[in-house]
């Protein structure tokens, strides 16, 4: 990296070779966190862009190895702090695959519903910041107003607004709270109108289309080759969604479409995500309407905590409770990879167990890490202003990238 050039004054850099090295980030309004990009500029044209990540590296994978299987769940929240339920889900799916346990339908539906609602929240953050980057400042406030509603729902279910840690190996942490149908239903009723409003403000806006159409184009082959996943791939025309192709958590019971576009530019990514908002609503609505009754945790006493009532009244339950809380549960040796469709793409957890009560290795195949690799090729020969639009359209989360 051209670290030495960064220390130079612009005049010196200019007179030396006519290009200017601009150090964008780690503190920059549009790098969405602590991403640093070293840009070689000729005027306003970017000749070369090198991403420098790792400013938010907190060693979560290493921490996972020191926690019991259940204690890892709150850590996964911190990876992608905008769609933490997807992270919870991928992790518990991997562990459940190792354990080979059956999850009751109510837990499945709760998982699906909340994951989809949190996908909406994540897309809202993306939409607000992306629009703000391009200059539509009011969108940010509107999106955060709606996100607030979602956070309230999440708080209602889990007691936490952002770091919900709501999922457990073997089900969910708590049953749905009283009156949840009304709150979730009201949100699902209101939100379509809000999406219409966003689209009114942006989709047909000539300045918005001027700024987004044809910007940040990448051909599908390059996207695949660089390991890009999620809405970016779908905006390039590949109809691939893990929820459809490798259904998990009962997604095969829901009917929804996988929106695609073919232009593979910023506008296509915007349109795909806007359509995904509506699809997520559809799924959440189906989950709300068809929510089955029954248990919210698997019938596996060694793994799931016993009900409070049972724990206070039955000796075995108390013993299980004590064992699970103090030393955790053992997971049979082996390895498993479970992936889910997070708002940003393929989120996979590769979990290795040596048969103990702590994971031997947890690798997080986070979508932002894979997606961000394309940054260099994508920004080449674009303008600074376009680079902002292209960055926004990638929808990365630095916590997700650096872990």
């Amino acid at each position, binding site marked *: 990296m051209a670290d030495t050039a960064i220390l130079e004054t612009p005049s010196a850099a200019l007179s030396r070779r006519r290009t200017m090295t601009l150090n964008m980030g780690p503190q920059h309004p549009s790098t969405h966190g602590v991403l640093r990009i070293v840009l070689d500029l000729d005027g306003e044209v970017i000749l070369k862009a090198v991403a420098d990540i790792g400013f938010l590296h907190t060693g979560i994978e290493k921490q996972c190895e020191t926690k019991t299987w259940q204690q890892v769940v709150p850590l996964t929240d911190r990876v992608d702090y905008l769609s933490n339920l997807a992270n919870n889900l991928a992790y518990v799916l991997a562990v459940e695959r190792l354990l080979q346990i059956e999850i009751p339908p109510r837990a499945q539906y709760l998982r699906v519903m909340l994951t989809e609602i949190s996908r909406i929240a994540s897309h809202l953050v993306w939409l607000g910041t992306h629009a703000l980057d391009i200059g539509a400042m009011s969108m940010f406030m509107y999106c955060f107003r709606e996100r607030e509603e979602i956070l309230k729902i999440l708080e209602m279910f889990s007691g936490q607004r952002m770091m919900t840690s709501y999922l457990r190996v073997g089900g969910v942490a708590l049953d749905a709270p009283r009156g949840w149908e009304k709150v979730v239903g009201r949100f699902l009723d209101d939100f379509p109108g809000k999406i219409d409003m966003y689209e009114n403000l942006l989709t047909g806006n000539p300045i918005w289309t001027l700024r987004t159409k044809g910007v940040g184009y990448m051909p599908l082959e390059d996207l695949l080759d660089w*390991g890009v996943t999620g809405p970016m791939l779908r905006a390039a025309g590949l109809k691939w969604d893990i929820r459809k192709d490798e259904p998990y958590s009962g997604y095969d019971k829901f009917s929804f479409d996988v929106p695609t576009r073919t232009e593979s530019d910023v506008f296509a990514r915007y349109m795909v995500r806007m359509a995904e908002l509506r699809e997520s609503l559809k799924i959440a609505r189906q989950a709300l309407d068809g929510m089955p009754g029954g248990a919210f945790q698997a019938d596996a006493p060694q793994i799931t905590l016993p009900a409070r009532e049972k724990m206070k009244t039955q000796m075995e339950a108390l013993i299980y409770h004590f064992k699970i809380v103090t030393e955790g549960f053992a997971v049979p040796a082996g390895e498993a990879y479970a992936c889910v469709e997070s708002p940003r793409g393929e989120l996979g957890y590769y979990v290795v167990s040596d048969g103990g009560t702590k994971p031997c*290795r947890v690798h997080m195949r986070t979508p932002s890490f894979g997606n961000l690799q394309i940054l260099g090729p994508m920004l080449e020969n674009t303008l600074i202003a376009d680079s902002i639009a292209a960055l926004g359209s990638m929808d990365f989360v630095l916590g997700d990238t650096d872990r």
Partner: protein
Amino acid sequence: MLSEQVQGMRVTQALAGAAAGAVVDGKHDRGELTLEIDAARIAEVCRFLKSDKYERLAAVTCVDVYPMEPRFEMIYHMHSIARNERVRLKCKVGGERPEIESVFPVYRGADWYEREVFDLFGVFFRNHPNMTRILMPDDWEGHPLRKDYPVHGHKYSYSRE
């Protein structure tokens, strides 16, 4: 040695035809196919798999099985969207001077994943264009995800500064 079930899988047969002897071991466990590949031939196998409709390299990572030898298991998660099929490749790399061929020339998406493994495990990738640290600072000592890397007692004491 390969079980009947693994030998019967399509990928295994295709690999046996294209790169005979590259598959050392394999298992089909909990619905996931894992093939152990001769570490020297990983790039070759990947090149074949890419031509065999495995468009994506989902992830590259590593497992440290310290104190066993060979110490590092390189993991490659391959994914074929066209066939809707996944396969995990595994290569054993010794702990003395861990080194393996880079698959960056085959899948450019391996770029950062290999740098990450180099950064956190210290496995060196031959033919990688930019084998530098990615997550840790450039002047970091040690490779944090190794099992013998201390969890406690960091070399810096922040409290005294």
